[in-house]
């Protein structure tokens, strides 16, 4: 099934994926062992479960898709792991526990009827590892519109969920109430021209969060300022480039993803053609802009016709915030080194990814000189899009979702972040 979200947990030991069929698959990294040096730190399937089922809204005569839009891990507080998974309407908290012992010997008498030695009654015996998943909370009926983001607060007690027009704040232990903290629904729906596209809590300041819009703006909100954060504390918006103006300018400026850096100092945004790094201290414009696939600028009308222009690509930071990554078409994904200003295009495909093979940089040629392995813009496959990518929080390991395949790549030479 088509993968719809990918997320590492806070240590990188676990990797969760959600798909269009409502399933969640969790991978676990095998501990490195000297006995089998070749299987150093590879990811194996740890658990699979059905998170959401399709539903039918009888009032509106519409289906509610079971597709998992987002998964977010909770920080681990005991032996169990917990994650939040959401579809368009309902968020669920899942608890993942391991069982490797089972009690045996309940009976006081053995098979022949003799009393057993009491010290042998009900002891814990080892068993094969079993991973159990159970839904602990179901946060339903909080959203009229489609949920596009969830984000766990650094206070580890609350989280937010955002749909097209509203953002709600929940307490992890309370399912029958949520607080609305942003509402951009106009009094008259005819006046609707802008929607919320993504949102995230600040990694360290539990009162700050950001949300992005379809008009390309970012709003940083402070929950200490007011109960309803309709009024932003900071508005990040880049002035439009008049020389590049077209009927598609607004559509391609719509922000599809926003991510705080691990340091909390910067934000990363993705719009249709670029990724941008913003400094929280500067609202006027991004401090860095990287072209993902500028060669598509001349093809916007075709992409509008095919609806590709509405594809929502995600973006990711590496653990040290020095490299950013995002997906593109033809199963390509791009990485930009913020320090060296070098960038690379890589491909996630079976042909070019034999185990332990080194990925070869790819190039899209736009006319002019064409090298041997270049792909021309016209032969790009727009059905092969990499929308979801994730970067291990501490190491150079990345997870790439290419339609219904998951690729995990490691940089063995430079496994430490720098």
């Amino acid at each position, binding site marked *: 099934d088509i993968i719809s979200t990918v997320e590492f947990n806070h240590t990188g030991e676990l990797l969760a994926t959600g798909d269009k069929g409502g399933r969640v698959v969790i991978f676990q990294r095998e501990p490195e062992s000297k006995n089998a040096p070749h299987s150093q730190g590879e990811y194996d399937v740890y658990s699979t479960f059905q998170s959401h089922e399709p539903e039918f809204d009888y009032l509106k005569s519409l289906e509610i898709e079971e597709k998992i839009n987002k998964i977010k891990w909770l920080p681990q507080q005991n032996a169990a792991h917990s994650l939040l998974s959401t579809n368009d309407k309902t968020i669920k908290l899942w608890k993942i526990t391991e069982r490797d012992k089972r009690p045996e010997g309940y009976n006081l008498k053995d098979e022949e009827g003799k009393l057993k030695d009491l010290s042998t009654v009900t002891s814990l015996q080892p068993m094969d590892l079993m991973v159990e998943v159970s839904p602990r909370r179901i946060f339903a009926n909080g959203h009229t519109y489609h949920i596009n983001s969830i984000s766990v607060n650094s206070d580890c007690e609350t989280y937010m969920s955002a749909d*097209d027009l509203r953002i709600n704040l929940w307490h992890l232990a309370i399912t029958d109430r949520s607080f609305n903290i942003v509402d951009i629904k106009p009094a008259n729906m005819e006046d609707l021209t802008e929607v919320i596209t993504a949102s995230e809590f600040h990694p360290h300041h539990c009162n700050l969060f950001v949300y992005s819009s379809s008009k390309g703006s970012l709003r940083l909100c402070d929950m200490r300022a007011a109960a309803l954060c309709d009024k932003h504390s900071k508005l990040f918006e880049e002035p439009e480039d008049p020389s590049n103006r077209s009927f598609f300018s607004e559509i391609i400026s719509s922000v599809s993803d926003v991510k705080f850096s691990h340091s909390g100092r910067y934000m990363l945004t993705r719009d249709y053609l670029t990724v941008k790094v913003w400094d929280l201290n500067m609202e006027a414009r991004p401090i860095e802009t990287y072209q993902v696939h500028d060669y598509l600028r001349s093809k916007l009308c075709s992409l509008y016709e095919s609806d590709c222009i509405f594809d929502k690509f995600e973006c990711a930071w590496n653990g040290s915030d020095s490299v950013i990554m995002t997906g593109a078409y033809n199963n390509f994904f791009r990485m930009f080194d913020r320090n060296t200003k070098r960038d690379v295009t890589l491909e996630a495909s079976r042909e070019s990814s034999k185990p332990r093979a080194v990925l070869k940089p790819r190039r899209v040629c736009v006319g002019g000189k064409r090298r041997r392995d270049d792909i021309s813009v016209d*032969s790009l496959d727009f059905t092969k899009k990499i929308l979801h990518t994730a970067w291990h929080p501490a190491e150079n390991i990345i997870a790439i979702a290419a*339609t*219904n395949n998951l690729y*995990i790549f490691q940089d063995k030479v430079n496994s430490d972040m720098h």
Partner: protein
Amino acid sequence: MFTYWRSPVAAWGFVLPSHECKENGIDWDTMFARGLKRKYGDQEEGVEGFGTVPSYCLQRQSLLDMSLVKLQLCHMLVEPNLCRSVLIANTVRQIQEEMSRDGVWHGMAPQNVEQRAPVDRLVSTEILCRTARGTDGEHPPPELEDDPLQSSASELPIVSSTQGQRNPQSSLWEMDNPQENRGSFQKSLDQIFETLENKSPSSVEELFSDVDSSYYDLDTVLTGMMSGTKPSLCNGLDSFAAAPPPPSSTCKSDLAELDHVVEILVET
């Protein structure tokens, strides 16, 4: 750093059969992307230039038509993507604003002398955009002053027969009221039906006169919707050079198609 990425595991699932999606790159795509604005006078040149690059105004009209089709034809089993609808509607608004600034909006199809033509065009646009029921007590009456579309309509008496003149983007995404969304697609088709039935054949021609039937053929669009492929605007524009079929026969076949579509919706 970048040259040493390796794959320890490629897990999970099977590869989709790959098929190339060739987007025919055409010159006018570039023109569009740069948003070159031509003066109104250029429109006549474009009409003559069949076989070469279509004029800016023709392309703009095609983009408008395409956008209206997109707003209308979203699969109604699942709630349509609100972000996409808003972006398309904003694009439609931009085009319409530019067209009215150019003075093109009211003066299009210069061969059409009859006074009723602008109204028909307004009606067709509005019907194409409307995806919810007209009768909704919640919404205040539209502000006629602001909207360039409405301003000409108020002058003509025929307007009053059309129910609830509104901003074309009205209630497009009204999801709060469950009553509105139910069978909204079917309702709007019913309205098209109703309008077509009430009008005489000559005015039906005018209803479709602004729409390029070779590209906008309901047959193609419906087939495209069913099979998952979309009619290529690029291909459609190629047929600009060919003479369009007589409007009356197209309208009749469109009526039959609407009948067919309504049938399908009723069955599902």
